[in-house]
């Protein structure tokens, strides 16, 4: 959504100043990246997304993990398409954690130092919000250059409800976070919710058996909705309370997400539910 001209100009000026050398280490200012709260997950947008997970240029997101190649990587299907030489570079390990609808990235920036050897990706549909997280990644990498900190975190603009399987291959992920998703209160908008029986199949596809879907919300009805739909899905089983509370990710999710902090300030309740992806049964 374009802002009013003056506001947009200021934002542009600000963003180009971020490009300059001395600004590299400065954290981005949120006020320049705010955007209307709701994006329509059904509309076409002008999204860029890879044709397939193999087409994803991961090295530009995780340059510290880039694998140097003398010649371009060729995959099977490309051999039929010799004209199409790919510029993408591989990385030494795959992304394993996805934060879906990551917002301003609070969860990711808390998780990154806790799991320094695990690559994680925030996925966000709102363009300015994505840019904010990307700028913050850049600043934190510069600030932490000595320790190589935050090289394992990145963010991408994506409508995950449509294109999750374009980014991740089968069983690639070990954790998916769905933190404070938009509730879409109106009944007719329920298909817009980020959890549904049918979307759970896509989460199960990108998650490896044993992998976990983490959900948290302050809207009790949405919590019940997510539990109902994920529990109903044969690929998931709910994780018991005891095990849930032993998982440090649950505590980070409660305390470090922007929404989680807001709810704490307002004295609200937070509802958590985690689900393990089970093995696929044998064919009937």
């Amino acid at each position: 959504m374009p802002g009013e001209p003056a506001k947009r100009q200021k934002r542009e000026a600000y963003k180009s100043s971020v490009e300059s050398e001395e600004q590299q280490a400065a954290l981005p200012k949120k006020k320049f990246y705010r955007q209307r709260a709701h994006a329509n997950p059904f509309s076409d947008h002008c999204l860029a997304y890879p044709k397939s997970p193999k087409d994803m240029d991961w090295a530009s997101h995780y340059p510290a993990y880039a694998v140097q190649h003398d010649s371009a990587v060729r995959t099977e299907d490309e051999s039929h398409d010799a004209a199409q030489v790919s510029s993408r570079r591989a990385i030494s390990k795959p992304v394993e954690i996805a934060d879906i609808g990551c917002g301003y990235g609070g969860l990711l920036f808390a998780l990154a130092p806790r799991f320094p050897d695990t690559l994680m990706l925030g996925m966000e549909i709102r363009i300015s919000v994505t840019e904010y997280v990307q700028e913050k990644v850049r600043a934190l990498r510069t600030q932490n250059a000595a320790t190589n900190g935050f090289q394992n975190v990145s963010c991408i603009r994506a409508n995950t409800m449509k294109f999750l399987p374009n980014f991740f291959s089968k069983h690639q992920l070990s954790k998916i976070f769905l933190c404070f998703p938009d509730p879409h209160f109106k009944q007719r908008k329920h298909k817009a919710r980020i959890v549904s029986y049918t979307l759970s199949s896509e989460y199960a596809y990108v998650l490896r058996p044993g992998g976990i879907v983490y959900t948290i919300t302050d809207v009790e009805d949405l919590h019940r909705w997510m539990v109902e739909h994920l529990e109903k899905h044969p690929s998931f089983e709910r994780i018991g309370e005891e095990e849930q509370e032993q998982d440090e990710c649950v505590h980070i999710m409660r305390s470090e997400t922007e929404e989680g902090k807001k709810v704490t300030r307002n004295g609200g309740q937070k509802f958590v539910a985690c689900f393990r992806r089970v093995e696929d049964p044998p064919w009937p």
Partner: protein
Amino acid sequence: MALPYSCIEACRLSTNGADEWALIAASGTRLVVQSSSGAYTTWPPASGSAVGDTEAEGPPGKKIKLSDPSENTSNFSCLALTHDQKHIIAVTAEDKCIRVFRIDTEFQLQQLSQRCMTRRPCAIAMTSDDSTILCADKFGDVYSLPLLPGPEDEQIRSPSVEQSEAAGEKAFVPAASVLTVHSGRNRRVLEEQLKQAAKGPKKPKEGPTFKHDLLLGHVSMLTDIAYANVNGRSYIITADRDEHIRVSRGPPQAHIIEGFCYGHESFVSRLCLVGPDRLVSGGGDPDLFVWDWTNFELLGKLHLRDAVLRFLREQPDLAARVPEDANSFRIAVSGIWHVPSEANEILAACEGIPALFSFRIGISSTAEQCIVLTGNALDVTFIRQSQTGCTAVVSVDNVHVRVSTTERREAEATSRLEYFSYRPGGQWEQDAETGRAFERISQSGGHADKEASLMTSTTGSEKALGAILYGIENLRKRPDSDD
């Protein structure tokens, strides 16, 4: 004057030991049937010869009347034959209904059931045992329905999760609490909900009460669906407007995604299985894609747009339609058909193009032959006769100018169907003999009744007719600035 046939199916009937063929074609709100021996019937039946079989199956003493077929005002958008050729499943677009007809020995169609879905069905497929209809809809969901509704469907089913998801028929629960963090908009919704709660729960929207189970779903309009059985394993393949081809397990494990066939860069509109392990897909891209779909591997591409361009350039009346920059020319695949008598021969059609293109999969990536038609290709079905081999019956647009999807002809073409037989050695030739046998259904003149309004060229009727015949190019994304 008559509407073109938007869909056509051929079925073989064995009567008294002799094989007979019948063509079943959809034209607007009507179905027309003609057998090779000349029997000719329509649905709804021509007035005067009302058929008594308009009651749905239900428990004795509790029969429900189906709506009077002569009142059908919805246009047929989809036809599918059961494998045993005893039933034909038809979708009517405006009322979102799946209708099942029995094809009786007199070639009368008897409507056995009429089930209206919540969302418009876009494509249907039958499981190989004919027990189940798979219905892919505009909202991206796939439902399974028994071929015929059973008596248990009379009981009001308790809404399952799936149903509440689709129809939103849950009892009212305030979605937000006062402690919820609110945006301005959410706060307004909450206020409204609380007001509504004070007035008592809103009457939940009635979802369908017949058995229909949600199997899987995309967050994108589905365009086609295929069911396959390979080495004892069943699969559902679905295609969507966002370039995806998804391979899921068949019921009862349809919630498991086995993989995706990645590669299309525009919408996918048609899937065609060729033998057990080959799949051909097409849509808004210049090429058809050939897949080893059980391994999700792209085997090659068939250059359909090149063939269309070559065809247009060779036609004196159409050459002007080729843009100067041929790369800007776009095709929208409206049909891919496997020729049943051949292992690897397919025919393909593009919206608004008066030709069919034949390809031999695994042999060449360029078209073998271009079959020139008298009107834009609409649908194809096949008749297999012992004497003449395989005949393709092609429904053509008799009312629009060739290559146009909007411009009316001055004089209507004389035939709505064309016939081509496959000669061993690989050429398609006009099949006049079969054409004569099916003259009555092919004729363009004849019954001008209800459809007459669609035939007069007004803006309204033009739009309505366009919606019936041509909807594929509309699937293409127009970059919008909504972010």
